[in-house]
């Protein structure tokens, strides 16, 4: 059994404990922002660091509610959750943005510890905070940079795809008539027969006409890509469709197509007028061109907002095609899919260029004999 401490020994022990506490408090005050509030959140203690960062004098803080430094940045639920935690006697940790007396904002990594009485009921709250404003700034700069990088990568991917498409055009649409011309020249040089030479010469025109047409279309597709801010205007979609209905009047009448519209998602869009007209005109034209002989043709034009894009859907009940098989190719230059005398494979290629140059996408969904749905995601809105 231990011998009980003498009175003197007890005083020495208590004195030592007090001094240890003093030293710990001193160490804490040197490194952290410390405040103590009552259970209502009124400040009953704030250390030097608290005053420095909040730019309030101690006398201005004492007795005031802690809300004095609330920056209004966090949602109500954020503080509700904090109060629930500490009122329940538990420790709360989190990053808080506060507002100093001069209006400047600062971020603090915060730990709030409730002091409990003998019945485990909180009697005061001690908050210990560290200034993380610099880290938060770096974080947001980093986030911004990452976002910029993502956007850049995305636009590079589009550019790369366009280059690939261009390479394809050169390889197939331009190089193949050229190879015909080369061969014809060689054959003309080789032959002794005047009739054969004449026959070959006649073919020259066919090929050069084709080459010229391809060039003209290419130039038209590329010229369209120079769009200025001033080309954008508020487009009224119902009005635009009515206008196109007039332009296509004869075609529509002849093919007995009915055009239905649904602009309930939105009616107006900020877009270059010549593009929107070209896009709608080409899609409507395609739906008319590839209508089914077995059904009364219907075209439905609708606006939509999906995946952060404002878009336009043009849907028909025409011949359709299997987009699982043809998918991307639908939008290639001179790619045609039906044995139609006027199929030229230029319209979709051109509007794809137009839409992509303004940061949008176009895709088609369909099955044979079940019509085609073309979704044009025009502009990103969020």
């Amino acid at each position: 059994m231990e011998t009980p401490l003498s009175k003197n020994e007890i005083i020495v022990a208590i004195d030592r404990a007090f001094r240890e506490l003093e030293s710990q408090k001193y160490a804490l005050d040197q490194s952290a922002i410390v405040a103590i509030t009552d259970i209502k959140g009124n400040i009953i203690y704030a250390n030097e660091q608290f005053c420095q960062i909040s730019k309030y004098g101690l006398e201005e803080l004492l007795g005031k509610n802690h809300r004095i430094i609330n920056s209004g940045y966090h949602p109500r639920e954020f503080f509700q959750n904090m109060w629930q935690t500490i009122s329940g006697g538990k420790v709360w940790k989190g990053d808080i943005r506060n507002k100093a007396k001069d209006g400047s904002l600062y971020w603090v990594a915060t730990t709030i510890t409730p002091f409990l009485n003998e019945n485990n009921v909180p009697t005061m709250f001690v908050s210990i905070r560290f200034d993380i404003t610099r880290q938060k700034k770096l974080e947001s700069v980093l986030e911004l940079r990452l976002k910029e990088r993502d956007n850049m990568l995305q636009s590079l991917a589009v550019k790369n795809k366009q280059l690939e498409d261009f390479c394809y055009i050169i390889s197939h649409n331009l190089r193949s008539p050229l190879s015909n011309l080369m061969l014809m020249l060689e054959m003309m040089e080789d032959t002794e027969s005047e009739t054969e030479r004449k026959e070959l010469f006649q073919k020259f025109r066919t090929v050069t006409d084709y080459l010229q047409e391809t060039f003209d279309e290419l130039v038209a597709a590329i010229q369209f890509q120079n769009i200025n801010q001033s080309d954008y205007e508020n487009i009224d979609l119902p009005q635009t469709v009515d206008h196109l209905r007039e332009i296509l009047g004869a075609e529509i009448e002849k093919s007995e197509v009915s055009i239905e519209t649904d602009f309930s998602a939105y009616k107006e869009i900020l877009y270059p007028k010549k593009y929107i007209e070209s896009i709608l005109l080409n899609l409507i034209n395609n739906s008319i061109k590839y209508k089914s002989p077995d059904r009364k043709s219907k075209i439905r034009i609708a606006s939509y907002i999906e995946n952060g894009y404002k878009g336009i859907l043009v849907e028909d009940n025409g011949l359709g095609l299997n987009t699982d098989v043809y998918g991307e190719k639908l939008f290639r230059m001179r790619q045609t899919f039906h044995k139609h005398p006027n199929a030229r494979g230029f319209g979709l290629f051109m509007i794809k260029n137009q839409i992509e140059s303004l940061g949008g996408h176009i895709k088609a969904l369909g099955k044979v004999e079940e019509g085609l749905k073309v979704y044009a995601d025009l502009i990103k809105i969020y």
Partner: protein
Amino acid sequence: MTLKTIFLVDDDFVYQFLTKKIIVEARTDVNIETFSNGQDAIEYLKSEYKIPAKLPEVIFLDLAMPIMDGWQFLKEYGTLNGKFGKQILVYIVSSSITPSEINRAKEFDFVQDYIIKPITKQKFKDFIQNLTDLG
């Protein structure tokens, strides 16, 4: 192998005309059938694959074609290959000099070679020589 029939699968009529001319000048004994897209050619092969007399010894296949292009043709052809009553040699004949397309063609083991357009007299001569070497 005796070369009797060549299938030209290509949508370009001028190419068809010129290539026929080149082939006939070199080999008057060869019969040429033309198809303007992959679909027409594959449908023919699907219906006649059991009858050797109706099949070609050689197919000259273009890549960029409407309705069914060369790549889709090759995919469909792959499922038929082996069922034919005779050996058929498939050659890609394309204007494309893009390495990615040339490499992609090598992925089909039944594709003999990739010939870059145009098929000149000399190229056709080389091709015939090659056939003889193949035995």
